[in-house]
Protein backbone atom coordinates (compact mmCIF):
# COMPACT_ATOMS: atom_id res chain seq x y z
CA UNK A 1 0.00 0.00 0.00
CA UNK A 2 1.09 3.60 -0.55
CA UNK A 3 2.20 5.72 2.38
CA UNK A 4 -0.97 7.14 3.98
CA UNK A 5 -1.59 10.84 3.39
CA UNK A 6 -2.03 11.94 6.97
CA UNK A 7 -4.42 14.84 7.33
CA UNK A 8 -5.50 14.94 10.96
CA UNK A 9 -3.81 18.34 11.25
CA UNK A 10 -6.85 19.54 9.32
CA UNK A 11 -8.89 19.19 12.49
CA UNK A 12 -7.38 22.47 13.70
CA UNK A 13 -9.95 25.30 13.88
CA UNK A 14 -7.63 27.70 12.04
CA UNK A 15 -7.21 25.27 9.13
CA UNK A 16 -10.98 24.96 8.95
CA UNK A 17 -11.32 28.76 9.07
CA UNK A 18 -8.95 28.96 6.08
CA UNK A 19 -11.12 26.48 4.19
CA UNK A 20 -14.30 28.41 5.07
CA UNK A 21 -12.60 31.49 3.63
CA UNK A 22 -11.54 29.68 0.46
CA UNK A 23 -14.82 27.87 -0.20
CA UNK A 24 -16.90 31.00 0.51
CA UNK A 25 -14.72 32.87 -1.98
CA UNK A 26 -15.21 30.18 -4.64
CA UNK A 27 -18.98 30.15 -4.12
CA UNK A 28 -19.12 33.95 -4.33
CA UNK A 29 -17.08 33.80 -7.54
CA UNK A 30 -19.64 31.34 -8.93
CA UNK A 31 -22.48 33.66 -7.93
CA UNK A 32 -21.02 36.81 -9.48
CA UNK A 33 -21.60 35.91 -13.17
CA UNK A 34 -25.19 34.93 -12.33
CA UNK A 35 -25.62 38.29 -10.60
CA UNK A 36 -24.39 40.16 -13.68
CA UNK A 37 -26.55 38.04 -15.97
CA UNK A 38 -29.60 38.95 -13.85
CA UNK A 39 -28.73 42.66 -13.94
CA UNK A 40 -28.16 42.43 -17.70
CA UNK A 41 -31.86 41.57 -18.11
CA UNK A 42 -32.46 45.32 -17.66
CA UNK A 43 -30.89 45.81 -21.09
CA UNK A 44 -33.93 44.03 -22.53
CA UNK A 45 -36.30 46.35 -20.71
CA UNK A 46 -37.77 47.01 -17.28
CA UNK A 47 -40.45 44.36 -17.65
CA UNK A 48 -37.97 41.55 -18.22
CA UNK A 49 -35.95 42.42 -15.09
CA UNK A 50 -39.05 42.93 -12.91
CA UNK A 51 -40.44 39.61 -14.10
CA UNK A 52 -37.25 37.85 -13.09
CA UNK A 53 -37.15 39.60 -9.71
CA UNK A 54 -40.75 38.53 -9.00
CA UNK A 55 -39.79 34.97 -9.92
CA UNK A 56 -37.04 35.13 -7.31
CA UNK A 57 -39.57 35.91 -4.56
CA UNK A 58 -39.93 32.14 -4.05
CA UNK A 59 -38.89 30.80 -0.61
CA UNK A 60 -36.00 28.81 -2.11
CA UNK A 61 -34.42 32.04 -3.35
CA UNK A 62 -34.86 33.68 0.05
CA UNK A 63 -32.92 30.85 1.63
CA UNK A 64 -30.27 31.15 -1.10
CA UNK A 65 -30.02 34.91 -0.51
CA UNK A 66 -29.55 34.28 3.21
CA UNK A 67 -26.72 31.83 2.48
CA UNK A 68 -25.23 34.40 0.11
CA UNK A 69 -25.28 37.12 2.76
CA UNK A 70 -23.63 34.67 5.18
CA UNK A 71 -20.94 33.83 2.61
CA UNK A 72 -20.28 37.50 1.93
CA UNK A 73 -20.00 38.30 5.64
CA UNK A 74 -17.75 35.35 6.49
CA UNK A 75 -15.49 36.00 3.49
CA UNK A 76 -15.23 39.70 4.34
CA UNK A 77 -14.44 39.12 8.02
CA UNK A 78 -12.09 36.21 7.32
CA UNK A 79 -10.31 38.32 4.72
CA UNK A 80 -9.89 41.17 7.18
CA UNK A 81 -8.35 38.70 9.68
CA UNK A 82 -5.84 37.43 7.11
CA UNK A 83 -5.02 40.98 5.97
CA UNK A 84 -4.43 41.96 9.59
CA UNK A 85 -2.07 38.97 10.06
CA UNK A 86 -0.10 39.84 6.95
CA UNK A 87 0.05 43.61 7.36
CA UNK A 88 -0.05 44.37 11.08
CA UNK A 89 2.01 43.19 14.07
CA UNK A 90 0.98 39.70 15.23
CA UNK A 91 -1.98 39.52 17.58
CA UNK A 92 -2.73 36.48 19.78
CA UNK A 93 -6.22 34.95 19.91
CA UNK A 94 -6.44 33.99 16.23
CA UNK A 95 -8.74 31.03 16.93
CA UNK A 96 -11.15 33.29 18.79
CA UNK A 97 -11.04 35.83 15.96
CA UNK A 98 -11.71 33.15 13.33
CA UNK A 99 -14.59 31.66 15.32
CA UNK A 100 -15.88 35.16 16.01
CA UNK A 101 -15.92 35.91 12.27
CA UNK A 102 -18.00 32.78 11.62
CA UNK A 103 -20.36 33.59 14.51
CA UNK A 104 -20.87 37.21 13.39
CA UNK A 105 -21.47 36.09 9.78
CA UNK A 106 -24.09 33.61 11.00
CA UNK A 107 -25.82 36.34 13.01
CA UNK A 108 -25.77 38.71 10.02
CA UNK A 109 -27.32 36.02 7.81
CA UNK A 110 -29.95 35.25 10.46
CA UNK A 111 -30.81 38.96 10.80
CA UNK A 112 -31.15 39.19 7.02
CA UNK A 113 -33.48 36.19 6.95
CA UNK A 114 -35.67 37.67 9.70
CA UNK A 115 -35.85 40.98 7.81
CA UNK A 116 -36.93 39.48 4.48
CA UNK A 117 -39.39 36.88 5.76
Amino acid at each position, binding site marked *: *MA*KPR*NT*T*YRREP*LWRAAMVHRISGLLLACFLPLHFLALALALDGEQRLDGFLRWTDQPLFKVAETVLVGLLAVHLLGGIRVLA*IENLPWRPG*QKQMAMGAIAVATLVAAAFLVRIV
Partner: protein
Amino acid sequence: MSAADTTEKPRDAAHGTIEVSIWRGRDEGRYETFRVPMRESQTVLDIVTHVQRHLDPTLAYRFACRVGVCGSCAMTVNGRPRWTCRTHVSKVVENGRIEIGPLANLPVIKDLAADMSPFFEKWQEAKGAFTPSKTREADIEPISPETRERKIIDAAIECINCGVCFAACDTVRWNEDYMGPAALNRAWTLVNDVRDAGNAARVHAVAQGGGCHACHTHQSCEQHCPVGLNPTASIAGLKRRTMQAFIRGELE
Protein backbone atom coordinates in the same frame (compact mmCIF):
# COMPACT_ATOMS: atom_id res chain seq x y z
CA MET B 1 12.81 -2.32 54.50
CA SER B 2 9.08 -2.61 55.17
CA ALA B 3 6.77 -5.13 53.52
CA ALA B 4 5.09 -2.26 51.63
CA ASP B 5 8.43 -1.28 50.13
CA THR B 6 9.19 -4.79 48.92
CA THR B 7 5.85 -5.04 47.07
CA GLU B 8 6.13 -1.63 45.42
CA LYS B 9 6.58 -1.87 41.66
CA PRO B 10 9.64 -0.29 40.12
CA ARG B 11 9.00 3.02 38.32
CA ASP B 12 9.45 1.43 34.91
CA ALA B 13 7.10 -1.49 35.56
CA ALA B 14 4.74 -2.27 32.71
CA HIS B 15 1.05 -1.28 33.04
CA GLY B 16 -0.38 -3.67 30.46
CA THR B 17 0.43 -3.45 26.78
CA ILE B 18 -0.30 -1.09 23.93
CA GLU B 19 -0.99 -2.04 20.30
CA VAL B 20 1.43 -0.20 18.05
CA SER B 21 1.13 -0.01 14.26
CA ILE B 22 4.41 1.03 12.65
CA TRP B 23 4.99 1.87 8.99
CA ARG B 24 7.36 -0.58 7.28
CA GLY B 25 8.81 0.01 3.86
CA ARG B 26 9.41 3.12 1.81
CA ASP B 27 6.77 5.18 -0.02
CA GLU B 28 5.14 1.81 -0.68
CA GLY B 29 4.77 -0.44 2.34
CA ARG B 30 2.37 -1.46 5.08
CA TYR B 31 1.69 -1.00 8.78
CA GLU B 32 2.99 -3.79 11.03
CA THR B 33 1.47 -4.27 14.44
CA PHE B 34 3.41 -4.92 17.65
CA ARG B 35 2.44 -5.23 21.31
CA VAL B 36 4.61 -3.10 23.55
CA PRO B 37 4.58 -2.89 27.38
CA MET B 38 3.06 0.39 28.55
CA ARG B 39 5.12 2.20 31.20
CA GLU B 40 4.90 5.32 33.28
CA SER B 41 6.05 8.53 31.54
CA GLN B 42 6.69 6.56 28.35
CA THR B 43 7.30 8.56 25.19
CA VAL B 44 6.47 7.57 21.62
CA LEU B 45 10.21 7.37 20.96
CA ASP B 46 10.49 4.90 23.87
CA ILE B 47 7.94 2.70 22.10
CA VAL B 48 9.82 2.78 18.80
CA THR B 49 13.09 2.04 20.61
CA HIS B 50 11.47 -0.90 22.43
CA VAL B 51 10.29 -2.38 19.13
CA GLN B 52 13.71 -1.96 17.53
CA ARG B 53 15.64 -3.38 20.49
CA HIS B 54 13.34 -6.19 21.58
CA LEU B 55 10.95 -7.11 18.77
CA ASP B 56 12.42 -6.30 15.36
CA PRO B 57 16.01 -5.06 15.01
CA THR B 58 15.48 -4.27 11.32
CA LEU B 59 13.20 -1.31 12.16
CA ALA B 60 14.75 1.93 10.89
CA TYR B 61 14.16 5.24 12.67
CA ARG B 62 16.14 8.33 13.58
CA PHE B 63 16.90 9.96 16.92
CA ALA B 64 19.81 11.53 18.75
CA CYS B 65 19.33 13.65 21.88
CA ARG B 66 16.01 12.24 23.21
CA VAL B 67 15.31 15.55 24.99
CA GLY B 68 13.75 17.78 22.32
CA VAL B 69 16.86 19.61 21.19
CA CYS B 70 18.19 17.91 18.06
CA GLY B 71 14.96 17.71 16.02
CA SER B 72 15.79 14.23 14.66
CA CYS B 73 12.91 12.10 15.87
CA ALA B 74 9.81 13.74 14.37
CA MET B 75 7.27 11.20 13.08
CA THR B 76 3.59 11.02 12.31
CA VAL B 77 1.73 9.85 15.41
CA ASN B 78 -1.94 8.98 14.94
CA GLY B 79 -1.95 11.12 11.81
CA ARG B 80 -0.35 14.18 13.36
CA PRO B 81 3.33 15.21 13.03
CA ARG B 82 5.02 15.31 16.43
CA TRP B 83 8.44 15.25 18.10
CA THR B 84 8.31 11.73 19.47
CA CYS B 85 10.89 12.15 22.27
CA ARG B 86 8.69 14.72 24.01
CA THR B 87 5.33 13.17 23.21
CA HIS B 88 3.97 11.10 26.06
CA VAL B 89 2.11 7.98 25.00
CA SER B 90 -0.61 8.66 27.56
CA LYS B 91 -1.47 11.92 25.75
CA VAL B 92 -1.83 10.42 22.26
CA VAL B 93 -2.97 6.83 22.74
CA GLU B 94 -6.46 6.19 21.33
CA ASN B 95 -8.37 3.10 22.53
CA GLY B 96 -5.13 1.38 23.53
CA ARG B 97 -3.70 1.85 20.01
CA ILE B 98 -1.13 4.10 18.48
CA GLU B 99 -0.10 4.44 14.83
CA ILE B 100 3.39 5.67 13.99
CA GLY B 101 4.54 6.60 10.50
CA PRO B 102 7.27 8.69 8.87
CA LEU B 103 6.85 12.43 8.40
CA ALA B 104 4.53 13.43 5.58
CA ASN B 105 5.59 15.56 2.56
CA LEU B 106 9.03 13.92 2.47
CA PRO B 107 10.31 10.76 0.75
CA VAL B 108 10.83 7.74 2.99
CA ILE B 109 14.29 6.22 3.29
CA LYS B 110 13.04 3.22 5.27
CA ASP B 111 10.28 2.64 7.81
CA LEU B 112 10.15 5.72 10.08
CA ALA B 113 13.19 7.52 8.68
CA ALA B 114 12.11 10.28 6.29
CA ASP B 115 14.58 11.73 3.81
CA MET B 116 15.12 15.30 5.04
CA SER B 117 17.02 16.38 1.90
CA PRO B 118 14.11 18.33 0.32
CA PHE B 119 13.53 20.09 3.65
CA PHE B 120 17.14 21.32 3.88
CA GLU B 121 17.36 22.10 0.16
CA LYS B 122 14.55 24.60 0.78
CA TRP B 123 16.71 26.23 3.47
CA GLN B 124 19.40 26.73 0.84
CA GLU B 125 16.86 28.17 -1.62
CA ALA B 126 15.69 30.64 1.03
CA LYS B 127 19.32 31.70 1.62
CA GLY B 128 19.15 30.31 5.14
CA ALA B 129 22.91 30.55 5.74
CA PHE B 130 24.40 33.54 7.53
CA THR B 131 26.40 35.84 5.23
CA PRO B 132 29.07 37.62 7.28
CA SER B 133 29.60 41.33 6.76
CA LYS B 134 32.95 41.38 8.59
CA THR B 135 36.09 39.28 8.71
CA ARG B 136 37.13 37.02 11.57
CA GLU B 137 39.68 39.64 12.60
CA ALA B 138 36.94 42.18 13.41
CA ASP B 139 35.76 42.62 17.00
CA ILE B 140 32.61 40.81 18.07
CA GLU B 141 29.69 43.12 17.34
CA PRO B 142 27.67 43.89 20.48
CA ILE B 143 23.94 43.30 19.87
CA SER B 144 21.62 44.63 22.55
CA PRO B 145 18.79 42.23 23.40
CA GLU B 146 16.56 45.29 23.67
CA THR B 147 16.71 46.26 20.00
CA ARG B 148 13.60 45.72 17.86
CA GLU B 149 15.48 43.49 15.41
CA ARG B 150 16.92 41.27 18.13
CA LYS B 151 13.49 40.83 19.75
CA ILE B 152 12.08 39.72 16.37
CA ILE B 153 14.94 37.23 16.00
CA ASP B 154 14.48 35.94 19.56
CA ALA B 155 10.86 35.08 18.79
CA ALA B 156 11.84 32.91 15.82
CA ILE B 157 15.38 31.65 16.40
CA GLU B 158 14.86 28.46 18.41
CA CYS B 159 13.88 26.26 15.47
CA ILE B 160 15.23 22.71 15.93
CA ASN B 161 14.78 21.76 12.23
CA CYS B 162 12.50 18.86 13.10
CA GLY B 163 10.36 19.18 9.97
CA VAL B 164 7.04 19.01 11.84
CA CYS B 165 5.84 22.29 10.27
CA PHE B 166 6.89 21.05 6.81
CA ALA B 167 4.83 17.87 7.32
CA ALA B 168 1.79 19.78 8.61
CA CYS B 169 1.67 22.32 5.78
CA ASP B 170 -0.86 21.96 2.98
CA THR B 171 0.98 24.49 0.83
CA VAL B 172 4.07 22.24 0.97
CA ARG B 173 1.83 19.34 -0.04
CA TRP B 174 0.21 21.24 -2.93
CA ASN B 175 3.15 23.27 -4.25
CA GLU B 176 6.48 21.48 -4.66
CA ASP B 177 8.27 24.80 -5.21
CA TYR B 178 7.15 26.19 -1.83
CA MET B 179 10.08 26.69 0.54
CA GLY B 180 8.06 25.79 3.61
CA PRO B 181 7.59 27.37 7.04
CA ALA B 182 10.96 26.47 8.60
CA ALA B 183 13.11 27.79 5.73
CA LEU B 184 11.14 31.04 5.55
CA ASN B 185 11.24 31.40 9.34
CA ARG B 186 15.03 31.03 9.14
CA ALA B 187 15.20 33.64 6.37
CA TRP B 188 13.17 36.02 8.55
CA THR B 189 15.68 35.73 11.41
CA LEU B 190 18.54 36.57 9.02
CA VAL B 191 16.64 39.43 7.40
CA ASN B 192 16.54 40.98 10.87
CA ASP B 193 20.19 40.23 11.67
CA VAL B 194 22.07 43.52 11.51
CA ARG B 195 25.36 41.64 10.99
CA ASP B 196 24.19 39.84 7.85
CA ALA B 197 25.34 41.05 4.43
CA GLY B 198 23.18 38.77 2.26
CA ASN B 199 19.77 40.30 2.57
CA ALA B 200 19.43 41.75 -0.92
CA ALA B 201 19.78 38.24 -2.38
CA ARG B 202 17.70 36.72 0.45
CA VAL B 203 14.76 39.10 0.03
CA HIS B 204 14.90 38.49 -3.72
CA ALA B 205 14.93 34.70 -3.15
CA VAL B 206 11.95 34.63 -0.79
CA ALA B 207 9.93 36.95 -3.06
CA GLN B 208 10.02 34.34 -5.86
CA GLY B 209 7.19 31.95 -6.79
CA GLY B 210 7.80 29.36 -4.07
CA GLY B 211 8.63 31.96 -1.43
CA CYS B 212 6.69 33.74 1.27
CA HIS B 213 3.84 34.87 -0.98
CA ALA B 214 2.91 31.23 -1.68
CA CYS B 215 1.83 30.84 1.98
CA HIS B 216 -1.95 30.62 2.38
CA THR B 217 -1.90 31.49 6.11
CA HIS B 218 -3.48 28.21 7.20
CA GLN B 219 -1.40 28.56 10.39
CA SER B 220 -0.83 24.81 10.68
CA CYS B 221 2.89 25.47 11.24
CA GLU B 222 2.07 27.69 14.20
CA GLN B 223 -0.37 25.13 15.59
CA HIS B 224 2.06 22.19 15.31
CA CYS B 225 5.49 23.68 16.07
CA PRO B 226 6.73 21.63 19.06
CA VAL B 227 8.84 24.49 20.43
CA GLY B 228 6.03 27.03 20.13
CA LEU B 229 7.42 29.15 17.31
CA ASN B 230 5.15 31.04 14.95
CA PRO B 231 6.42 30.64 11.37
CA THR B 232 3.17 32.19 10.07
CA ALA B 233 4.15 35.46 11.75
CA SER B 234 7.68 35.22 10.32
CA ILE B 235 6.31 34.61 6.82
CA ALA B 236 3.95 37.58 7.25
CA GLY B 237 6.99 39.66 8.17
CA LEU B 238 8.72 38.51 4.97
CA LYS B 239 5.61 39.42 2.96
CA ARG B 240 5.79 42.95 4.34
CA ARG B 241 9.55 43.19 3.83
CA THR B 242 9.38 41.98 0.22
CA MET B 243 6.50 44.38 -0.48
CA GLN B 244 8.60 47.27 0.86
CA ALA B 245 11.50 46.13 -1.33
CA PHE B 246 9.19 46.00 -4.36
CA ILE B 247 7.86 49.53 -3.71
CA ARG B 248 11.42 50.84 -3.36
CA GLY B 249 12.34 49.20 -6.67
CA GLU B 250 14.78 46.80 -5.04
CA LEU B 251 13.15 43.75 -6.64
CA GLU B 252 13.36 43.11 -10.35
